[in-house]
């Protein structure tokens, strides 16, 4: 699959023209915008209409088997970094086998762990989301660290750490619903 991608434009804080590094098994749709220092691992799906621009905060990492769906935006502030699982600093780290569904916004500094689900139109900004979390739809998560395995219901606004600490654990029914939604999305892979 030929990916249309671009070097980040030179800026006062980044003089090099970094280009994305995309694993050859990843599928990056040509109508997506992938710009700058972005590492895309094996079997990642980047759908059309996505915008992944490492032109301010940089670099980004997207782990193996992760899906990034139509209309998703990944971007980062110039300042602020998270520590990725490899111990290095990233503006945005997304782990393995995670689903970032339609129109979600992941704005760095942000860390999203492995096996997570980020629902339609939810926003993650200046936050860490532990492995196996399920974040439903129209959610705002900002300035907090969410422990692994937590469930964030639709419409929630989680902007202080007490709220984050009291979130309920993911239940089987939540996994099933997320799988249902992802099932819809996975059909995309065959479609493209």
């Amino acid at each position, binding site marked *: 699959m030929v990916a249309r991608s671009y070097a980040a434009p030179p800026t006062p804080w980044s003089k090099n023209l970094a280009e994305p590094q995309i694993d050859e098994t990843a599928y990056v749709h040509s109508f997506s915008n992938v710009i700058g220092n972005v590492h895309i691992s094996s079997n990642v799906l980047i759908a059309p209409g996505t915008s992944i621009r490492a032109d301010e905060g940089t670099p980004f990492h997207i782990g193996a088997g992760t899906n990034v769906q139509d209309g998703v935006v990944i971007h980062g502030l110039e300042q602020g970094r998270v520590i990725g699982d490899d111990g290095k600093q990233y503006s945005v780290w997304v782990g393995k086998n995670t689903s970032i569904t339609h129109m979600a916004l992941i704005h760095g500094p942000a*860390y999203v762990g492995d096996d997570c689900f980020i629902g339609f139109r939810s926003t993650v900004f200046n936050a860490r989301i532990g492995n196996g979390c399920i974040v439903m739809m129209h959610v705002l998560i900002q300035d907090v660290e969410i422990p692994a395995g937590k469930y964030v219901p*639709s419409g929630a606004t989680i902007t202080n750490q007490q709220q984050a600490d009291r979130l309920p654990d993911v239940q089987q029914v939540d996994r099933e619903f997320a799988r249902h939604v992802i099932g819809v999305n996975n059909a995309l892979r065959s479609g*493209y």
Partner: protein
Amino acid sequence: MSLSPLHPIGNFNSHISGEVIIDRTAAIAPGVVFHADPNSKIIIAAGVCIGMGVVLHAHDGNVEIETGVNLGAGVLVVGKATIGANACVGAATTVFNCSVAPKQVIPPGSLLGDTSRHLTVDSTVEVEAAPTPPTDATQPSPPTSA
């Protein structure tokens, strides 16, 4: 619930794939994504207006946008859905696997058809959220390490 921001679209190309039938009197902004899975269709009737950045994804059934419907910018419709004639769906609304009746007016930022587990996450949270608890607990921003 906070109204999520409209994403400025990175490019103005529209992407249409699968079986998509668009009446020639429909008005469609740039930067839309219409995707019909196999055995599903997207049907857009006469006089429909569709705003920028709208995503329609038909899956396990058809997405039908009936005559005279208006979809504001950034609307997302996923699954099997009918938007009834002359309905008006506000910007940044999500419609998941459900339908909107004819002539209905849906406020901006709505979420329709969400059947996930709804619960009141410890409402006690409100209490200490308000009186600004002094400790470092209110000092989150943990990820910004560098």
